[in-house]
């Protein structure tokens, strides 16, 4: 690989956005989980729900803070490294991102402080309303960010002006572009699953040392319901998203499947090594005709192969093939965990299998890995374009020196590992503490934070 400015700028974006996406993926799910916990507490009056709310609230505050600072970096990175892209797409993506900032600023800003510190100050109904608004705010952020990303994948509703900029002709068509609904559902479900697996892992971890801890039992049980219900739904949502991609970005599907030749009755390649230079997938393990059946719902359906596109129009199949398989593999494991938990639950022994508890602890980070693998699939699969079919990545980059990008890349790597390494350590030490039924509302010794404002983009 040649380390020119373009490669370095791509590495830098991949690095900073990968670090960033982890936090919103977690906080979107956690905000909704907190709303559910508080709602259950208000409905049932059981103290364990309040204790769990206070337990996860602290974890939410720390991860939200890290999401904010890593998000700030993203909002400037478009300009420093991708200035041509910013100039050309700014008239369309700028307002979408602007709405994200405004909406998130408004909803989360207004209510996060109340949620974190206001239980005693504002009373229960208003506090619950604040928690719901925080959850709604994180979803609103996701809505606008994913709309912007989807427009880059399936651009519609635009015209070009004399300066070569994309200009919105129909905002409705821009916002609700063809891949947006699928991507939104797939990502929000992914965020919910990611959070459920973390919650499940923390519950399982504490159950392994104390089978009687009520907080741990409840969070484990709730997380297993999520895995059992949401993981299969995600399979369906992912399949629909894939079919949508086949319609609009067939080259991405060909790369994900490792298909090179166009033909009827394509096999499903389970494992293999797509070789970009040799234009073939080596070491294939395949199931005949199943690929065509999954993609076209016809055993003899015709599916395009990568050779249909000239070399300079193909995404890197080696990366996309494998990132896709990592995502699907982890998703399958999540479904299995959910089914296993259902079986144990109906025998009344949900928390009594050390094997399931240990597996759930191991699966704790699997949601994050699946989210990253999924994003790598869709973003690398969009290459060699930033705006699919219209603006090449190579034509999007800033006119910058490789040294400048390289130096800032090294700085970001060092700083992120230091800062977010420490943050992850603090998050893990919060999770390491067993949940306690008398979990305090506000920590002693930590300053009170805003009952009114806090920041914007969790995304």
């Amino acid at each position, binding site marked *: 690989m040649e380390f020119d400015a373009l490669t370095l700028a791509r590495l830098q974006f991949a690095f900073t956005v990968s670090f960033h996406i982890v936090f919103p993926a977690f906080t979107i799910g956690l905000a909704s989980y907190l709303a559910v916990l508080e709602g259950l507490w208000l409905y049932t009056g059981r103290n364990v729900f309040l204790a769990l709310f206070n337990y996860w609230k602290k974890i939410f505050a720390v991860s939200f803070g890290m999401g904010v600072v890593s998000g700030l970096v993203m909002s400037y990175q478009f300009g420093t490294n991708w200035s041509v892209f910013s100039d050309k797409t700014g008239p369309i993506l700028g307002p979408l991102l602007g709405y994200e900032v405004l909406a998130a600023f408004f909803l989360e800003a207004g209510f996060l402080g109340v949620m974190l510190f206001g239980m005693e100050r504002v009373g229960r109904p208003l506090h619950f309303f604040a928690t719901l608004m925080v959850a709604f705010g994180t979803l609103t952020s996701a809505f606008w960010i994913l709309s912007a990303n989807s427009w880059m994948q399936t651009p519609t509703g635009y015209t070009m002006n004399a300066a070569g900029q994309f200009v919105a002709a129909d*905002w409705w068509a821009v916002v609700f572009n063809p891949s947006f609904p699928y991507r939104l559902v797939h990502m929000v479900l992914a965020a919910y699953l990611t959070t459920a697996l973390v919650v499940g892992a923390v519950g399982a971890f504490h159950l392994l040392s104390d089978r009687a801890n009520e907080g741990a039992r409840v969070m484990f049980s709730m997380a297993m319901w999520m895995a059992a219900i949401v993981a299969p739904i995600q399979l369906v949502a992912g399949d629909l998203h894939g079919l949508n991609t086949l319609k609009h970005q067939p080259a991405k599907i060909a790369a994900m499947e490792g298909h090179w030749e166009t033909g009827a009755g394509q096999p499903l390649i389970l494992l293999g090594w797509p070789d970009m230079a040799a234009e073939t997938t080596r070491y294939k393990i395949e199931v005949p005709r199943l690929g065509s059946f999954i993609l076209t719902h016809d055993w003899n359906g015709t599916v395009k192969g990568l050779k249909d596109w000239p070399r300079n129009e193909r995404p890197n199949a080696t990366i996309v093939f494998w990132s896709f398989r990592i995502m699907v593999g982890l998703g399958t494991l999540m479904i299995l965990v959910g089914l296993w938990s259902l079986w144990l639950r109906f025998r009344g022994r949900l928390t009594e299998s050390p094997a399931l508890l240990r597996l759930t602890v191991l699966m704790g980070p699997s949601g994050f890995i699946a989210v990253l693998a999924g994003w790598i699939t869709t973003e690398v699969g969009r290459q060699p374009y930033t705006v699919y079919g219209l603006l090449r990545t190579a034509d999007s980059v800033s006119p910058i020196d490789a040294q400048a990008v390289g130096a800032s890349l090294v700085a970001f790597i060092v700083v992120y590992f230091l800062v977010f390494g420490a943050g992850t350590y603090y998050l893990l030490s919060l999770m390491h503490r067993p949940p306690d039924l008398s979990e305090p509302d506000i920590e002693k010794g930590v300053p*009170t*934070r805003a009952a009114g404002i806090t920041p914007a983009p969790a995304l």
Partner: protein
Amino acid sequence: MLDLLTDLAFIWAALIAFAVLAYVLFDGFDLGIGILFPFLADDHDRDQAMNSVAPVWDGNETWLILGGGGLLAAFPLAYAVVMPALYAPITAMLLGLVFRGVAFEFRWRTQHRKYLWDWSFALGSLVAAIAQGIALGALIQGIPVANRAYAGGWWNWLTWFSLITGLALAIGYALLGATWLILKTSGELQEQARRFAWITGLGTLALIGLVSLITPFLDPIFMQRWFAWPAILYTAPVPIFVALAALALFWGLRRRREAMPFLAAIALFVLSYIGLGISFYPYVVPPSLTIWDAAAPASSLKFLLVGALVLIPLILGYTILAYWVFRGKVDPKASYH
């Protein structure tokens, strides 16, 4: 249609100018507290100083995101030119803000490593402030543009002038921070804050004067804007008001007033900002791009303006409410177990 675009671009320029001013004032004092952090007497004082901004800092920083996001949406060409031109200072600022931002949370999660996050907070704040000042200086000096792209070198931002503006902004933020501490604390810490305010106040005024003297010589447009007849009738009040604000600052410090120094420091910043506005208008990237050169098409400006006009007043309302809720002195015992 053309007139509509003209008006929309002007409205957006005003909105973004407002967001940047709001950022400078709001985040200015909490960055200033970071800059003063190493000079505070002990851990207890540092806890108090940090508590005085902990409830509001993250809301303050969001104005920076709003400014950057607004620039991308309303003036994409300006965004695309300025960011590569200021590559190094912007990157340094972002890294500085990362270090200081996480310190607010992390500092309370550790006992024996607390000093590390103290330094992270102090150095991060200082680096962010100097980088912003350097970026401002580089912008005043002018950014060359050719074919819708930055056309200068990678070290253009680094000059004696930009180093002076970097220093000026850092000392100015420290003044805002010191006067904020006078307002929010009492006792020994407040006394110390008064001494800081004297030193940084004198430093800020000296540097405002120096920058104002150099600026007109950087570009004939600036010179004409300030000194040509009859423009001087409109521009002359600015330095006069600066002198009045300076008097109010030192009078307030001498008379041991609590709010006056902070308000006077804010007035100094607002006046300097108005001065910059007089020099810049109608350029968004002097001397290359006016706000109309860089404006996004009317459809984009209209689409986001609807949301901005509804939500920005609400956000301002929240902000005022939050400052009201957390008004009064910081409780000196709040950070003890």
